[in-house]
């Protein structure tokens, strides 16, 4: 009888056990799917995306003349060829290099920039002002002619940078300035071409021309000129290493970053006008 009872109990329990096991398997599958989903939802980068700062929000701009200047500055910064068309010679915007409106760590952030000047310039071999530094960008990276001194465009850009820097809250760490540190390597343009085709040409195009106003050009008439910082292999490598390709930043090795930067630098760029060396 006892055995029978145990047997019966076991028989009664069996379906439950099977159900429970199936349920557990199901749970494991769901959990695995979730893990897989979460894992792939995150960028597959080995480098975390810095989240210490959020892009500037136009809604927070104060009203009045200062606010109007900030707004114009933000527009020039993010759509330079449209809002400073008289002075720029290519299709790039400030925010193509100064990522997220100048607020992204290792993306040449400019939060706090007004306080860094006057600054000794390796290029000029003397102290320069923030205004001078902006003119360098306009004449090199924007392949343009200098903005009028104290004109509305310059005033707007300075106001925008002031406002960005005022946004700094003590609790939030300001974005890390400049670019990532990279070892000094030699880039090989031949290897770089393969890296480019694999990782960059989908957006920037096989012809490096990008799409005006949206995807930045890397060479040719729509791109920065020979005098731009981005035309220096080491600088572009540092930019690329941390920020590109945009769907998987941090996936290239330092050598690949150097190679692709050497490839881009080997392509034609507009000549820099040395008359603007005064800045």
């Amino acid at each position, binding site marked *: 009888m006892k055995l029978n009872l145990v047997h019966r109990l076991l028989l009664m329990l069996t379906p439950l056990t099977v159900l429970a096991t199936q349920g557990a398997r199901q749970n494991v599958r769901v959990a695995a*799917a979730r893990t897989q989903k979460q894992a792939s939802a995150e960028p597959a980068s080995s480098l975390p995306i810095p989240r210490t700062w959020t892009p500037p929000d136009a809604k927070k701009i104060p009203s009045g003349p200062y606010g109007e200047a900030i707004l114009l500055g933000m527009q020039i910064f*993010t759509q330079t060829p449209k809002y400073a068309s008289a002075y720029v010679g290519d299709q790039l915007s400030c925010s193509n290099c100064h990522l997220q409106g100048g607020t992204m760590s290792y993306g040449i952030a400019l939060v706090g920039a007004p306080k860094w000047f006057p600054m000794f310039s390796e290029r000029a071999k003397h102290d320069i002002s923030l205004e001078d530094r902006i003119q360098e960008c306009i004449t090199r990276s924007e392949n343009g002619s200098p903005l009028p001194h104290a004109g509305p465009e310059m005033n707007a850009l300075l106001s925008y940078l002031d406002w960005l820097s005022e946004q700094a809250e003590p609790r939030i760490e300001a974005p890390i300035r400049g670019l990532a540190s990279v070892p000094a390597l030699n880039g090989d343009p031949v290897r770089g071409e393969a890296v480019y085709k694999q990782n960059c040409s*989908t957006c920037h*195009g096989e012809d490096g021309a990008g799409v005006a*106003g*949206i*995807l930045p050009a890397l060479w040719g008439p729509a791109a920065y000129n020979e005098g731009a910082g981005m035309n220096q292999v080491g600088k572009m490598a540092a930019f690329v290493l941390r920020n590109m390709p945009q769907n998987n930043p941090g996936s290239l090795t330092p050598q690949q970053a150097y190679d692709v930067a050497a490839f881009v630098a080997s392509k034609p760029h507009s000549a820099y006008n040395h008359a603007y060396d005064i800045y």
Partner: protein
Amino acid sequence: MPAWHVSPEEDLRAVSAYAAQLGRTDQLPETERFAPPDALQEAGRRVYAMHCARCHGERGAGDGKDASRYLPSPPSFKGMRPSYAAAKRIIEGGVPGTAMASWPLLTQPEIQAVTHYIRSLYAADRQDSSKATGAPQ
């Protein structure tokens, strides 16, 4: 909320017609465009290939090579035409509880361009969908 079911037939029809064309009224005014429509379309195609096709499929049918890994399945853009505001919200913030992650690195022009492209995939819009597939006009 008024008792809608007792509303006059005429009102119901008007509301229904309005709701049906909501998705289509959200055209970008020229002043808000980062580039002309052709440039938005081309840039959008590139951004889509880079960031979206893996799940949403090369032609937006929700059949990308990774699509089968996710529940709920990535939606097909053949049957939905998100507004610019909705697409921006979803791209910037992601959709909790789904595989749709946020894309904090995409710029505002890129988001606008990819939305322009995604909207062109909507199957009901024959002209735009033929453009998206590269078919002759």
